[in-house]
């Protein structure tokens, strides 16, 4: 795996809707810019060898970093793969949609649910929104939220940006009734 850049962003929301948020709501995103393992190889039918080579290493690199950046117990999480213009969306999906990648964050946080994801093909500098859901119960409505991310010079056409996002709480000022309660 060839890494060109890693960005870490922590957002603390101290106020929402004009009211204080105490403690501040924390969301962290870590994004790695890597060479697309299948760049220049034409249509590769079997992605498994590339997944095996890259996904576990990437998961092991990003999961502890995003947990450390958050600096608080993780309550919600999500992931992203943004493929450069010369790649297939399937290449990004290959790297993030296997247990080889996602289990690193699940184990680091004591989580059990699926990691919600965004995957798309985009030019360098594109913004992408990472959906987050609760780490043990994806129906907990207060924890449905989104983290926005962007790497100014990535992905280049032969690269992929792979990101993890975590939050220490649900939305600031969350006050929707639980799922199903309005029926």
């Amino acid at each position, binding site marked *: 795996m060839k*890494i*060109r850049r890693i960005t*870490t*962003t*922590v957002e*603390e*929301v101290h106020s*929402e809707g004009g009211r204080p948020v105490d403690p501040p709501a924390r969301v962290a995103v870590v994004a790695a810019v890597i060479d697309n393992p299948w760049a220049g190889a034409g249509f590769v039918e079997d992605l498994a060898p590339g997944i095996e080579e890259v996904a576990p290493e990437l998961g092991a690199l990003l999961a502890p970093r995003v947990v450390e950046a958050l600096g608080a117990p993780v309550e919600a999480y999500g992931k992203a793969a943004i493929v450069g213009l010369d790649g297939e969306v399937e290449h990004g999906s290959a790297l993030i949609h296997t247990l080889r990648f996602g289990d690193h964050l699940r184990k680091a946080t004591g989580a059990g649910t699926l990691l919600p994801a965004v995957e798309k093909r985009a030019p360098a500098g594109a913004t992408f929104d990472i959906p987050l859901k609760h780490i043990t119960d994806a129906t907990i409505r207060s924890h449905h939220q989104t983290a926005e991310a962007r790497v*100014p010079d990535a992905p280049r056409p032969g690269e992929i940006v792979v990101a993890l996002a975590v939050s220490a709480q649900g939305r600031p000022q969350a006050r929707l009734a639980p799922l199903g309660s309005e029926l």
Partner: protein
Amino acid sequence: MSTVRTIVTHVDEVWAEPGGPRVGPVRRAAAAAVVANPWAGRPVGCDLGAEAPELAARLAVELTGRLLERLGGAAAVAAFGKGAVVGLDGEVEHGAALIHTPYFGNLLREMTGGTSIIAFADDRSAAGSPLTVPLWHKTAAATRSHYQTVQIRVPDAPRPDEIVVVAAAAAGPRPHPRIGDRTTDADVTLEDVKQPV
């Protein structure tokens, strides 16, 4: 007292230039605070003196503290910079009042162990505009290897009546710096390069 709505701390690690070998990594950080513009709704040209010191000092300490935490303390800081983005209804001077004052700059210098003048960017922009913040060496501003920038962006700020205030730092020079310095430069004039004036 202006309240802080959001603080975003961003760390950028360059592991390689495109196609190049593994470096450092080169680490740069920027921290941005979103605050209500204390002078929102006041006429252009109003006095800025009363509000600036308290808010500028508070932001300098909060933001520089986050840079030090992420980069590993003052000893790890090699270069620094600052910036302000004023929301669409404000004066650029409002942002300047918060960063171009000893209540901001002196504290940023003191906390990072710097002595240089601090490079800066200021602007008025819509929410979500990226700001590219220049960085200079913290004790020798003309050190060319340390001329670099870090980009930061807060997706939903500044609102028209807010200001985004930024402190930034780098832990080292650019990757592969190799353009010499003032000591190695030729003394170039228009005559030497035969350019018409």
